[in-house]
């Protein structure tokens, strides 16, 4: 039976969560712009507030007061509903994400299933936006988003399953907090138990999750569905003002989500290195919790920084290459990871056998992929010619000595 106090508490929690998320999103946009500027030898935002810190606020005000335009041919309901459909799942994801021991709106034992279910929903909104904009670029972008998001959801799900198998729980608090799990008569030890974070145990899973996460976010090098130079912004091309701001919000909330998920699953969340052991046993629980949350956020921002760094570095893949990479590389890798984890657990091999097998496997796959595209033997396609005099006295271009 749901009591009124529970309802009120949950509502308060949701409100606090929203406020926190908004703050995070604004800070992330600032961080991204500053980092990109740093990479690109620019100043970045620097006028509004110290170091441009208030620039996101100024942007938000500008977007919210801007005229909202709907193309004449766009179906009214679909066009206005699409942003809501994108942002709602992104927001609902956060309900079960723990920022610390007990620092969450709603605990859920099947939390990982909930995450998987909700994160797929976003694609519906993108498709609606693509279709409902009555623009061909939007439509192309919408379909690209659908193909991409659905494909890359699979490796993410399988990695999450592998983690769940390893931890023997679908509850995110267990993944991070690490209750002692006894499998085949042996106690598993990881992050929360003073052990190592899962990243060292399951490096293959981390790599697959991070890359697939980039694709799920539509971030470079997988920013196919809003590819500026091709479909000019994809599903969002016709949106302006507050509705565009909502898409923007969802995008950064998702970036934050993937970064948080990576940290929670693979970098020990708030419990590694253990705040309690750092502060000593006599520390008040509040301080322990605060330190844990701070650690979590520091790690999340570091991962987000890496995502932004990618954006400043890579060109964009083509849609067929993206799909091929997803289906031919990432999905088999994620399955290999799952099978490895299951095998190690079933036969009760020591935990270190996991990275021992998966790191060479990863190296081989990376090598093959590298050879496929960047084989040094195939690289030398441009030869140098120089001026030379032919037998009949004519001046011509001939291959330089040493060039075949």
């Amino acid at each position: 039976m749901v009591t009124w106090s529970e309802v009120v508490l949950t509502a308060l929690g949701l409100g606090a969560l929203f406020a926190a998320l908004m703050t995070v999103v604004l800070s992330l946009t600032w961080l991204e712009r500053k980092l990109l500027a740093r990479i690109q030898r620019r100043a970045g935002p620097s006028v509004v507030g110290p170091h441009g810190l208030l620039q996101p606020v100024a942007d938000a005000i500008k977007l919210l007061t801007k005229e909202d335009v709907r193309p004449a041919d766009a179906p009214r309901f679909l066009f206005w509903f699409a942003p809501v459909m994108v942002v709602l799942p992104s927001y609902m994801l956060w309900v079960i994400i723990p920022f610390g021991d007990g620092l969450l709106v709603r605990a859920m034992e099947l939390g990982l299933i909930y995450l998987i279910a909700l994160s797929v929903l976003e694609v519906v909104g993108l498709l609606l936006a693509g279709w409902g904009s009555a623009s061909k670029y939007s439509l192309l972008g919408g379909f690209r988003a659908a193909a991409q998001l659905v494909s890359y959801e699979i490796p993410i799900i399988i990695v999450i399953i592998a983690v769940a198998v390893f931890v023997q729980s679908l509850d995110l608090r267990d993944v991070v907090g690490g209750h002692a799990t006894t499998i085949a008569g042996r106690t598993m030890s990881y992050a929360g138990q003073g052990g190592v974070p899962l990243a060292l145990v399951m490096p293959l899973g981390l790599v697959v999750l991070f890359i697939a996460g980039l694709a799920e976010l539509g971030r470079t090098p997988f920013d196919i569905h809003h590819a500026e130079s091709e479909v000019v912004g994809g599903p969002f091309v016709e949106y302006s003002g507050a509705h565009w701001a909502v898409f923007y919000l969802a995008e950064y909330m998702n970036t934050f989500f993937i970064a948080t998920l990576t940290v929670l699953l693979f970098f020990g969340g708030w419990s590694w290195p253990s705040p309690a052991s750092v502060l000593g046993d006599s520390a008040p629980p509040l301080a322990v919790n605060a330190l844990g949350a701070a650690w979590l956020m520091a790690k999340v921002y570091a991962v987000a920084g890496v995502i932004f760094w990618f954006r400043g570095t890579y060109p964009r893949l083509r849609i067929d290459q993206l799909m091929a990479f997803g289906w031919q590389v990432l999905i088999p890798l994620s399955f290999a990871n799952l099978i490895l984890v299951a095998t190690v657990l079933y036969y009760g091999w020591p935990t270190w056998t996991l990275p021992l097998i998966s790191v060479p496997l990863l190296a081989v796959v990376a090598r093959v992929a590298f050879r496929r595209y960047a084989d040094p033997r195939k690289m030398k396609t441009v030869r140098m010619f120089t001026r030379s005099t032919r037998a009949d006295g004519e001046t011509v271009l001939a291959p330089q000595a040493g060039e075949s």
Partner: protein
Amino acid sequence: MTARVPGAAGSPQTLDMMVNMGPQHPATHGVFRMELAIDGERVVGLIPHIGYLHRGSEKLCEHEIYSQIITLFDRLDYVSNFNNELGLVLAVEKLMEIQVPERASYVRMILCELNRIASHLLFVGTFALDAGAMTPSLYTFRDREMIQALFEATSGARMMHNFFRVGGIKEDVADDFVVRVDRLLGELERGIDEVDGMLSFGEVLLARTKGVGVISGPDAIDWGMSGPCLRASNVPYDVRIDEPYCLYDRVEFGVPVGTQGDSWDRYYTRVVEMRESVKIVRQCLAQLQPGPIMAQLRRIARPPKGEVYAHAENPRGDFGVYIVSDGGERPYRLKVRPPSYCNLMPLRDLVVGSYIADAVVILGSLDIVLGEVDR
């Protein structure tokens, strides 16, 4: 193009979608417009539209004296202005049989090669943008800006220089010109290496450009392509070597020639060309001697009756100028052979059958400038 039989190419019963790319699209480099017929992500048809930037430059030339035409030529290929000016003055000088002073020729070569580097830098930046990488463009613009600062110090303008004259150059370069150029070259070399290292051999760029938009050597010749686009298709042809103008026969330099004829070769020949241009400028600086900068001429050039064709190697290719003179101080007819226009010709053959994303990369790799295509 829309009249394709539905379901012909093994696809289900679907009609092609027409997508209009340009004239205002981030990837069309100006005001080029492509009508794409697409089947999913595949391009099955393409109708290019040019002429949005048509200003009737050639006709305008008939009403200007030669020194005024130089300003019009600045505005043809508006990222390699010195090279355009050179094409015109070479033609008039050829018709009038003028011997240009050595110092003027060297300064022309230095400025033209620097302009080639500036133009190729712009290409590398925009090509990276087309492929989805935003950072290289900011690096190349930094280096291009240094070149333009030098141009501004030399000619007074960043882009529309109006600096070359029939018989020489407008005025002598500043005393610190050699020192400045020398310092600039060092910085350019560093900048080129930086961008090359960041972009050229990255797996993603290779995946996007290798084998994309392949054109064979004979086809490229048939279409009238020239410059790096032609050389990427394994055709060793460079006006600077084959028909040397200015004093190019006095400098040693290499010409990069590709073997595949794909977008990556078109990209990389340009990167290598920039390094060779640096070498040319170094040699010119070493050979630059004090002396006159203008041939002895009457104030207003008045070529004899006759016709002439002269061409020079622009950053984009073989830039030709054909002048018919009736003996007056204005040309009777002036025709430009625009390398961008000729390089653009095979676009449909290159793009049809590839992906939408490839269309953008291929167009970028041809490196057209609409000011010159439309004139």
